[in-house]
């Protein structure tokens, strides 16, 4: 820890702010010694993931206190739509971030830090990506004892088909009806390859367990409850807090969808200057070319770590398509038909 943390964690499940009808999962306060401004960030990321970034910012700006509110991506969007008072939103749901910007909730930020972000990692100078997080296959080595480690979806399908008994009930993936990120990964998979639907059929046939969150799946694999989990955030699987001894994290070689976590400054921000400072600080650190990632994640990928198959999901209006209520309904029905057998 570079400085003392006065993180007062108040885990208020199902906590509701007076006038607003959105649910938050947790609220963490990072007080500042000489606080004159309080920055309110709503985020879909676990506070453990984002805390280093906040502390790093406060090290440079001691007068800004930060309140970090965790919520699911849909609840976060709900909060914004209802006009709840937040300065920044950090989210892995690229589609929802795009929709917020498209629907006019975002403020344009043009600074040297934002202009250093490559074109493919920002949209409208409002949504800025600051991480590259691959959707990975996480498996338990003990469960795969004697089996080859699958490198592609095709190989995975074959293994699952050949050993149905070993994997029945021991496969996990996102419940796309609950998780925005899971839905994003699923829709991008479906765009990229027909193999996705075959894999989903196979997983459906093996009584796949559905999860809300990556961390739960990682935990389930680690504990041996699951043999493998599909479309797990690689960044979570590699977090220092996760014991990785019992895990194998695989970026599949046919393609690996890469989610870009992004930050967006809200139009009705009450502390626009502080919010801009935060965005600039976060982006300049994340996109810096230094070898050591400043807070456990970096937007620039280690060249050795990049498989050529990484396929960054692009920010932009294309992402609005799968948010269309009809489109979503159709996709979910098709998915349900495949996964719930």
């Amino acid at each position, binding site marked *: 820890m570079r400085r003392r943390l006065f993180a007062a964690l108040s885990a208020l499940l199902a906590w509701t702010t007076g006038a607003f009808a959105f649910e938050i999962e947790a609220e963490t306060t990072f007080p500042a010694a000489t606080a004159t401004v309080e920055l309110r960030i709503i985020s879909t990321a676990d506070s453990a993931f984002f805390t280093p970034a906040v502390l790093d910012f406060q090290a440079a700006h001691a007068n800004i206190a930060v309140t970090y509110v965790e919520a699911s991506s849909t609840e976060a969007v709900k909060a914004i739509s209802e006009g709840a008072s937040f300065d920044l939103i950090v989210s892995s749901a690229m589609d929802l971030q795009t929709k917020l*910007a*498209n*629907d*006019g909730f975002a403020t344009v930020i043009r600074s040297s830090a934002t202009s250093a972000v490559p074109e493919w990692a920002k*949209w*409208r*100078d409002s949504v800025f990506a600051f991480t590259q997080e691959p959707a990975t296959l996480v498996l338990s080595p003990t469960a795969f004892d004697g089996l080859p480690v699958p490198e592609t979806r095709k190989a995975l399908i074959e293994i699952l088909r050949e050993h149905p008994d070993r994997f029945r009930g021991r496969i996990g993936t996102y419940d796309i009806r609950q998780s925005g990120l899971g839905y994003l990964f699923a829709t991008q998979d479906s*765009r990229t390859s027909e193999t996705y639907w075959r894999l989903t059929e196979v997983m459906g046939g093996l009584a796949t367990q559905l999860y809300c969150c990556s961390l739960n799946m990682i935990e389930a694999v680690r504990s041996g409850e699951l043999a493998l989990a599909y479309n797990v955030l690689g960044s979570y699987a590699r977090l220092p807090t996760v014991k990785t001894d019992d895990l194998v994290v695989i970026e599949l070689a046919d393609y690996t969808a890469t989610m870009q976590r992004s930050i967006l400054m809200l139009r009705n921000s009450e502390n626009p200057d502080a919010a801009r400072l935060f965005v600039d600080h976060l982006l300049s650190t994340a996109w810096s070319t230094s070898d050591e990632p400043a807070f456990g994640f970096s937007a620039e990928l280690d060249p050795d770590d990049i498989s050529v198959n990484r396929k960054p999901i*692009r920010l*932009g*209006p*294309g992402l*609005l*398509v*799968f948010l*269309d*209520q*009809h*489109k979503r309904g*159709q996709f979910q029905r098709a998915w349900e038909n495949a996964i719930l057998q």
Partner: protein
Amino acid sequence: MKGRALGSMRRQMIAQLVVGAALLAALLIFVFQDFARRFAEESQDNVLLASATSILENVSEDAGGLIVDIPYAALAMLGSVSDDRVFYRVDQGPTFVTGYDDLSVAETTTANDTSFVSSGFRGDQIRAVTTSRLLSLGGQTQRIRVTVAQTQDGLGDRLDELFRRAVLLGLGFFVLATGLSVWTATRVLRPMQELALSVSRRGPDELRPFERPVPTEMVPLISSLNGFIARLRRALDRSEDFITEAAHRVRTPLATVRTQAEVLSRRIERDENRQTLRKMIRAIDESSRAAGQLLDQAMVNLRTDALQPTQIDLNDCLQDVVTRLTPVAELRDIELTTTFADDCHVSVDPILIQNAVSNLLDNAIKYTSAESRVALSTSSDGDGVYLKISDEGPGFEAVDQPLTERFVRGSAGEGTVGSGLGLTIAAEVFEAHGGKMTLSNNTEGKGGCVDVYLPR
């Protein structure tokens, strides 16, 4: 005489060309910008229509219900053009199906199934296209309308960029055209300037025709100019001929008349008749001298206007005059002495110098007392050559008196034949050579003194 100037032709020409170029550049910017705007708007419309059409194509009927399966590319294609915000909606007849329900839908018909509208939406300027087709749903035909709209920030940015380019293009064109104008004007007017320069550089005696080739437009001017030069040359030639001719025609008869009168006076017995005849002779002398000096003066004017100096030894030139005048001096028992310095080479018109010195010596001989002395001397230094004539006559009344003006005679001239032109002619000649003539009185003893300076 200085000509009246109407302003510089070159400047006028450049100004007109530059103004023309500026107008053309402005027109170019306007046309280019207008074209670019239409083009940009049209391409935005095309992408919007492609997007709306691809959505419309993916609307289908399933068991009497409507399936709207928006293709990913339909909205992604809009994102690939610009970062503009995108809105869409799908309607089934009068019923909203999906998308942004606050987006307005344009009315479309079978005959005109596509409509483009520019309007405002959520505080932004948008361009919207609505396209439609009929679909049979559960036995009922309904019009399905797809509206796709996009904000125009990207278009604005593109137009700004295009405008910048148009302005740069126009400015570039203007700068280029201005450079060309200056070049053209300079080039076109160069023969004119060269002609003007060569005319102004010509000496007064230089009366050759212009023979350098000139542009066709200037040929009439050159021919007229050459015509003028030829006429001037002929006129000058005629004047010189006339002067020489006149000198002969006037002097010779007068000399004859004078000789006759002298002869006659010796034969005449009666004293009063002789007196009358003396007066006549005197009048003839005066006329002869006046005619001679008038002709001299005309000659001097002509020659000084077109001075053609040659390098001579002034001493030789003066010796000729002295030799010619020695008999005249001897008639009055006047001693004409010369003192010549070495190196008296000057660049002069010898005929004019002889004429002037002859006039001065003639004056000196005429006004000095009989049996006295007239001294002519030369000297030289680095600057020029000096000439001095002194006599022992009454001198000049006052040094600053205007004796060198035409027809002014000093009081000493009374009782002597003279026209008052001698000093004037001499002064004019020396001045034409860039020299100076000064009159003074001898400080010791009596007599006048003329000092002449001629530059080398």
